[in-house]
């Protein structure tokens, strides 16, 4: 194998490897790759920056939506509250009116009852008087003697009550 002919192949190849590799590392790679590395890092920062921005925008959009939903819910609650209030008020007013009407009707009823009672009593009193008069006349016609007014009245009352 020519590779193991160290006396002839070793030093010259090591020497030229050292030269070419030094030129490659210091003259080519060190000059070019850092430039590229910077660009790649710039790109990375830009991409992550854009992503961050997008995330921020999304977060603010989410916050806006949340606020919107909250406002909507609040408005709905308020509306519901005022509806309930109005309903309660209306019920109260109706109750009040009904009560007033009841009172009025009752008053009218009592008054009417009283009038009826008075009229009845009056009528009853007149009937008594007429009955007593009639009875007195009848007794006079039958017996010829005129009974005393008090007796007639008492008898009439008793008869009417019985």
């Amino acid at each position, binding site marked *: 194998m*020519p590779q193991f002919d160290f006396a002839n192949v070793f030093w010259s190849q090591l020497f030229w490897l050292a030269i*070419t590799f030094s030129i490659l590392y210091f003259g080519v790679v060190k000059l*070019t790759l850092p430039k590229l590395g910077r660009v790649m890092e710039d790109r990375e920062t830009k991409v992550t920056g854009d992503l961050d921005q997008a995330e921020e925008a999304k977060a603010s959009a989410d916050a806006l939506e949340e606020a919107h939903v909250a406002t909507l819910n609040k408005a709905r609650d308020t509306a519901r509250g005022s509806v309930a209030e109005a309903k309660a008020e209306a019920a109260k007013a109706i109750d009040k009116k009904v009560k007033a009407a009841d009172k009025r009707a009752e008053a009218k009823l009592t008054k009417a009852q009283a009038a009826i009672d008075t009229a009845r009593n009056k009528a009853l009193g007149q009937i008594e008087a007429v009955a007593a008069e009639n009875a007195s006349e009848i007794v006079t016609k039958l017996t010829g003697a005129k009974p005393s007014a008090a007796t007639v009245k008492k008898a009439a009352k008793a008869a009417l009550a019985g």
Partner: protein
Amino acid sequence: MAGPMEQFELETIHPIEAGGFDLSFTNSSLWMLIALGVISLFLFVGTARPQLVPGRMQAAVEYLYDFVRKMLDENVGPEGRRFAPLIFSVFIFVLACNLLGMVPWVGSFTPTSHIAVTLGLAIIVFAIVCIVGFARHGLKFFTLFWPAGSGVLLGSFVFVIEFLSFLSRPFTLAIRLFANMTAGHVLLKVFGTFVVGLGSFGALPYVFGILPLAVNVALTGLEVLIAVVQAYVFALLASLYLNDAINLH
């Protein structure tokens, strides 16, 4: 016909001697320079005007660079990124040498099929691992070889084994790459010899050469794959060794 080992022969193009050492410019040196030229072209064109939205060449360079950076992120952690240019250099140099060696041309040569080259690369990696390890941890770097929570006797035993295995790392790294490249090229050459030998069979020319040719086509595909995989393995092991030096497990 050339033997299967002849492709690894060094041919001196311009003899140089310094201090008793033979430092001649050979075909190996030439192909290392060609690899350097191809890589330089690739990198300079790819990063001429780096833009936020990359063009084709930039995207290609970025893909490879990102590949190395991800490998370091996974195997070393955030501190590994500092070594991305080094690992990238090792990776792309091995990759370029391996792939250029696959060019089907009589003058083509694979520098990474020579243990001198692979050992040189492995020693670069090993030296940097040692420098980083001692610079960061001082003598505590030796705790890398001590198994945590074991007794003195077992511990020292394991220490010796671990230390020897650490010292053998540059050699295993070098031999793995060299052996893979050499074996692949020998295999290709052997089947190439079969194509010529069987194809020139007197009574039925060409017919018997078809089978080894088909095998050679398949082997070429396999060898391209191995060229890429071995470059990856070399860079991966280098980053794993670097991880030991930086994080002590």
